[in-house]
């Protein structure tokens, strides 16, 4: 351990549990001109909150596992079962990518603008929304569907354009002379339609003319009540690349501590990030180039560095993903983390496992708890002490689980 370093959090159990009402954090969204408010899709701050399907924690974890399997399956030597489709450069999507554990932002599209709430995802390249008329199948979304015929700034993209060719394996030919896209996710959820342009309003003062996106005419799967998805991955067709001249391929976000609060998604450096940001190198992951690769070097629990050989982390590599809920670790690393965490939490009553989460506690009789600080060390001498809300997956007060899970093998 490091002398003088804080090694535990003492926090109220109630702060880990979601509140039934929304307490928006307005500061960031109001002072930065290129900032969107981030909302948990199924929390009280969301207009999608009236979803007829109640939040099911087991379903969240099952779908999270589906997304992870899809990510892992893109490796040619993977044995995780889900095979990459012919469109190998598709985003890391199972239906869960667009599932319950994710966050949404509301943007404006078209002239006059229509507000659309989209899931944001650093693992996806393509932004798409459902469009009228829906030729075959569209799911029910909360907001009125985007109708190109009512937008004066809408245009189709030609089949022969460079933009269309950048779809690569996500292109699906032509409809007349108009470029078409097709995405099929790992769980067979899909979106197909026209690849088009229109005016995108990030905020009233931040407008992107001729933003390229998918106008979905046939959308099936587990998309909830969102209007679609905003792709933030490292790809030619993502919003990051399309706005490179304006924002310099620079964006940031904050995910709130609970669904009862709001965060932000900001494009560009305008307004400044929080005062002290520590940077670790981004890397490209072989065969998964759309993802943002990072290097995990070690983990500490309660200020004590776990004894994990460095090769455990380096052999498989790692990515950061806004669409995966639970952090996946090499089994050797997970085992060391679990042992140290359980030892530090030995005074608390354990609870039954919850799907992939095997270290759960019953805090229903506690008002406050003391939790060891978990620290991730990344390349570049970056140490990140997790927030208490970043340590647990809370099903209920009587079942609060360590929010980590192992991969199948250290090499995976």
């Amino acid at each position: 351990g490091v002398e003088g370093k804080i090694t535990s959090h003492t926090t109220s159990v109630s702060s880990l549990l979601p509140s039934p009402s929304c307490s928006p954090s307005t500061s960031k969204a109001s002072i930065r001109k290129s900032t969107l408010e981030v909302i948990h899709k199924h929390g009280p701050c969301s207009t999608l909150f009236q979803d007829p399907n109640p939040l099911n924690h087991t379903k969240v974890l099952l779908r999270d596992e589906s997304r992870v399997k899809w990510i892992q399956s893109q490796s040619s030597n993977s044995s995780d079962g889900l095979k990459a489709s012919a469109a190998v450069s598709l985003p890391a999507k199972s239906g869960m990518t667009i599932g319950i554990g994710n966050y949404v932002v509301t943007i404006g599209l078209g002239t006059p603008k229509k507000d659309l709430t989209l899931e944001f995802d650093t693992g996806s390249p393509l932004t798409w929304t459902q469009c009228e008329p829906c030729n075959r199948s569209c799911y029910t979304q909360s907001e009125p569907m985007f109708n190109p015929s009512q937008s004066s700034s809408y245009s189709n993209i030609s089949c022969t354009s460079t933009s269309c060719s950048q779809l690569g394996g996500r292109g699906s030919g032509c409809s007349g002379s108009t470029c078409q896209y097709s995405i099929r996710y790992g769980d067979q959820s899909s979106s197909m339609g026209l690849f088009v342009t229109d005016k995108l309003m990030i905020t009233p003062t931040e407008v992107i003319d001729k933003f390229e996106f998918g106008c979905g005419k046939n959308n099936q799967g587990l998309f909830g009540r969102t209007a679609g998805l905003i792709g933030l991955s490292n790809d030619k067709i993502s919003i990051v690349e399309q706005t490179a001249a304006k924002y310099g391929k620079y964006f940031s976000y904050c995910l709130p501590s609970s669904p009862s609060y709001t965060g932000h998604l900001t494009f560009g450096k305008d307004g400044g990030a929080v005062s002290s940001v520590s940077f670790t190198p981004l890397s490209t992951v072989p065969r998964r180039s759309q993802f943002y690769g990072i290097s995990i070097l070690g983990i500490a629990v309660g200020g004590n560095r776990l004894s994990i050989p460095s090769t455990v982390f380096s052999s498989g590599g790692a990515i950061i993903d806004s669409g995966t809920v639970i952090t996946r670790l090499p089994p050797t690393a997970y085992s060391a983390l679990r042992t140290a965490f359980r030892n530090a939490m030995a005074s608390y009553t354990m609870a039954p496992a919850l799907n992939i989460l095997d270290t759960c506690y019953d805090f229903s009789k506690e008002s406050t708890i003391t939790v060891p600080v978990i620290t991730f060390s990344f390349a570049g001498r970056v140490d990140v002490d997790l927030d208490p809300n970043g340590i647990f997956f809370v099903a209920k007060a009587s079942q609060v689980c360590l929010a980590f899970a192992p991969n199948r093998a250290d090499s995976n």
Partner: protein
Amino acid sequence: LGIYGNTQQKTFEVVYDVAGRKLGFGSNGCS
């Protein structure tokens, strides 16, 4: 392949400097 998920990212300012090939973490990013 390890995956650093969104639960662990809560409350941090997560900065993607894609052009500069670096990723940043800042504490108390939502407040």
